[in-house]
Structure formats: C-alpha cells, structure tokens
C-alpha cells in the first residue's frame, strides 16, 4: 500500500455540493472522495490506478481501517465482508464454485439525503473501484449497482463510466446496473436481493440474511455506494491513511447532507467526530434561530439545538445522545416551525411508503401518523396516550425495520418537544403549524407508493 499522506481534519472537511435550494452550485476543492474528475483518465490521474492486491490483503486493509457502513447501520465493513467469505466456505461445492455477489446500493431512499447521488455523479469511478476491490476481497464474480429507475441523469453518468472501464478493460467483474422503483423500502437490502432475483422490490423475511443467502442463493455483500468508495481508497492508501482522519472509534471521513434552516444547505465530506456546531458552521451557520436538528433522516431522532451543537458527529456519539447518524442526514429546524406538525407529515409519508406486507406496519403506521396529526392540528388530548400505548405493537414487528424507524422518530418528537405537546394540548395548534414544511417530502409520495 502507498505511504499514508497527511490527511488532517481540516483538509478532509469540505463543502462538496450545494443543494438545489441554495442555487449556488458551489463545489469543493478538497476532501478525499471528490478530489478527482469524473472521467476515467482524470480519475486515474488524481488517485492512481487501483493496485492489484489480492483478496485477503484488501480484506485485511478494510478490517484494520475500521470502516463502517455509510448507508445507515454503521456495521463494520470488514466483518460484513468476512461473513460473506465464511458463508461461501460453508456452502456446498457446486454453489461455492459460483462465487459470491457484490450489490452496491445507490438507491437513496431518504428524501432529505443527496450524498449518494452527489458521489455517483462526481466520482463514479471511485464507487466502481470500490466494487472491484470488494469483489476481489470476497471472491465475487458478479456485481450489481442499484439505482432509482427515475434518476435518468444519474444512470447515464454511471453507464458512461462503465463504458469507459469496459473499453479500458480494467475490471475483472462486469458491473450490471439495476433500476429500482423509487420507493422508501425498495432499497432495503433484502428488497434489492428479491428484485435482482426477478421478484418485487420488497423486504423479505429473514434469516437467511444476504451474506449467507443473497442473489441467486449465493452469499452476497450489500454495501452502500459511499462505503464502497471508501473501500476504493483504502485499497490504494491503506488503513493508516484512512485512520488519519476521524476518531479512533469512528475513523475516516463521511458524507453528510445538511438541510433545513442553514445558509448553505448541501452535501459535505466531514471528518467523523467534528461537533454539531462545526457541522452547522460548515453549512454557513443557521439561517435563522433554531430549536432542534433532525439527525439520521426519517429513521432517526430529534436533538434540541444546544445538545446537537455539543455532540460529536459520529455513530456512537450520536447514539449516546439519543440521536442517530443514519445515512448522515441533518436537518435544522427553525424556532418558528412546529416540530410536531413536521414530524406528523413525515410519519404520514412513511406510513404511505410501507410495502404493505406486514400487519403491524399496514395498521400501525397510519394509526400513529393519524394520532400525531390530531395532536399537531387539533390538540387532541387523547393522542399522546394513544401513541404511547400503540408504539410497542408497531416497533420491531415487521419483516424489515421500516415500522421501527418511524416509531422511533415519533417517540423522539414527543419526548424532545414535550413542552410543545403541552402547548398544543392546552391552547391548540401553534402558529408554526401553518409554516411551510422544512423536512422535504417527495411530491409523488402518495401516488407512487403502491
């Protein structure tokens, strides 16, 4: 592996992409993931070619780097790869000869996230390098890159990148693009497996988990595209280089999407462990006085502003504060907004995004959303008790974690905004309920979900 280069915190923490709402289209000059151009020659010029290390060497480097998944679960990537390798060794010989499968998840289901799209647009070859390195690490001879079917421009960028690689003949395993329906649960890992096997993009009952039996019954590694981009860099520069940024228990950099009431909403590459205050500063600071920040997206939790400012942006630190890193989503909520109304809108959207397979999700999420709406809009006094009594019957009772995440977000709203709950119960809906939504929701949600 190459010599680690100095990668300080400052150098890795960079503004990468301005969200459409900011309109400035500014891009960063530094950062790790975006330092090269999008075309193959420029990419190789900036990063160098992917070295020809063998599988065990790559696996070892990923293990020692401490990289964790950037899609939301923050599971150690090296351990996940080893689980696939171990599972492949366990299956019968005929199946073993077929090899393992890599599935790169580029379906960004979270409405408030833009990082995967941005990464694939700006650095498609880094993601494809990561797929190549991961394939080598786990002994895969088949690879899929999953994208949303309606993101035509993105699909084109990736197709062009794949064409460049095919004519250069640099990949041992050809990557197939899969175009998935743009629905929240379609990008759950077992949904991807089921879709790639010719079925509907809906979660399936586990176990078996994909690492033991995935695409075509073969051991399958499902990783977020950003995770794989880091693998592409770790294969080049080694674990020490990766660990030069971030913290000991949360090494490396991560992409985050910062939205809501900040001056420059957008996607940033941060060194893990910067504080919430530093994160907001990176996004130009608060655009108006804030009350709270939504962390981890619509599967996440709220944090009051003061608590957020002091919390380190890293999976374990956020979890300890009662929040979540998720896929690196942070939305700043201004004081003039009604947090209960905001959460109620998201809860309704999430209820609509259910795959409609499991009873507790089909019945429970609309009931919870309805109760939260009644509380936010009418100050319904029965709502808090109803929500608290219903929540245990919803969380943890689906085939996937869709009902858990939504239940957690609602519970977090009732606890963080307990004072607002009392105000609504005593005096009816606050003025903030009439303010336009801060948390983004796809316009098509209602019609496209089934």
């Amino acid at each position, binding site marked *: 592996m190459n010599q680690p280069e100095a990668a300080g915190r400052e150098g890795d923490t960079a503004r990468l992409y301005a969200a459409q709402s900011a309109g400035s289209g500014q891009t960063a000059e530094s950062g790790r993931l975006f330092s090269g151009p999008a075309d193959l020659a420029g990419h190789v010029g900036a990063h160098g070619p992917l070295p020809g290390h063998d599988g065990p060497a790559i696996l070892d480097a990923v293990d020692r780097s401490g990289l964790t998944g950037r899609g939301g679960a923050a599971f150690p990537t090296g351990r996940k790869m080893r689980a696939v390798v171990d599972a492949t060794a366990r299956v019968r010989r005929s199946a073993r000869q077929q090899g393992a499968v890599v599935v790169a998840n580029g379906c960004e289901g979270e409405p408030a996230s833009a990082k995967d799209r941005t990464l694939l647009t700006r650095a498609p070859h880094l993601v494809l390098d990561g797929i190549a390195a991961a394939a080598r690490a786990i002994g895969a001879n088949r690879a899929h890159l999953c994208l949303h079917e309606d993101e035509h421009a993105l699909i084109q960028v990736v197709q062009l990148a794949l064409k460049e690689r095919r004519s250069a003949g640099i990949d041992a395993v050809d990557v197939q693009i899969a175009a998935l329906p743009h629905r929240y649960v379609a990008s759950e890992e077992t949904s991807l497996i089921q879709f790639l096997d010719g079925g509907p993009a809906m979660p399936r009952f586990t176990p078996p988990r994909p690492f033991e039996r995935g695409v075509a019954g073969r051991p399958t590694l499902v990783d977020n595209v950003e995770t794989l981009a880091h693998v592409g860099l770790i294969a080049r520069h080694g674990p020490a280089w990766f660990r030069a940024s971030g913290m000991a228990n949360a090494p490396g950099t991560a992409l985050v999407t910062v939205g809501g009431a900040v001056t420059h909403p957008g996607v940033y590459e941060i060194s893990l462990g910067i504080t919430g205050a530093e994160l907001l500063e990176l996004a130009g600071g608060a655009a108006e006085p804030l009350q709270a920040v939504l962390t981890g997206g619509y599967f996440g939790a709220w944090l009051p502003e003061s608590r957020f400012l002091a919390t380190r942006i890293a999976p374990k630190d956020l979890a300890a504060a009662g929040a979540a890193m998720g896929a690196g989503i942070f939305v700043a909520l201004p004081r003039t907004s009604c947090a209960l109304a905001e959460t109620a809108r998201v809860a309704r959207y999430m209820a609509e995004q259910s795959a409609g397979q499991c*009873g507790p999700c089909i019945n429970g999420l609309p009931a919870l959303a309805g109760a939260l709406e009644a509380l936010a809009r009418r100050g319904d006094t029965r709502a808090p008790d109803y929500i608290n009594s219903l929540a245990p019957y919803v969380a943890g009772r689906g*085939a996937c974690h869709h009902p858990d995440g939504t239940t957690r977000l609602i519970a977090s709203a009732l606890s963080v905004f307990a004072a607002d709950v009392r105000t609504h119960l005593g005096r009816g809906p606050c003025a903030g309920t009439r303010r336009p939504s801060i948390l983004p929701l796809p316009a098509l949600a209602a019609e496209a979900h089934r």
Partner: protein
Amino acid sequence: MTAGSSNSRLRVNPIACKAHGVCIELLPELIGSDPWGYPVVSGHLVPNRLMDHAKRAVEACPTIALLLEEVPQTPTSGRS
C-alpha cells in the same frame, strides 16, 4: 436456560401472517394479540409443559406463519 424450558422459541413471519388468530386461540399462555388481531409472541423459551401446545399452534396456522425455532445452546457472540 430456565429450568423447565425447552430450547425453542416462537416467531411469527409477519409477511405470511394474515391475522387468522388461530394461534392466539390455541396458545393464549404464550401468544397475545395486538389491537388489529395479529399475534404477539414474547421471544422467551417455550416451557416444556407447553411444547405440545406450541407445536399444535404451529401446525394449525393456515398461512404457515408461526415458527418454532431452536435457539443455539451457547449464545454466540461477536459474529453477525
């Protein structure tokens, strides 16, 4: 393991379950109902004295959604 317990526990496949409620009728000691009639199982080990009833409930499920699963004797740790 608790004295008098088997090494098996009940699990519901929530995709297959259509809330017929047969298991709730047959094994109220271990299976409750949620507000919509779907079964709620505890995840605890099934006591030996109820094993036959548990097997009967599993066999009676019209959608084969109730499962009786063996739990590994020694808890495995550190592995996904």
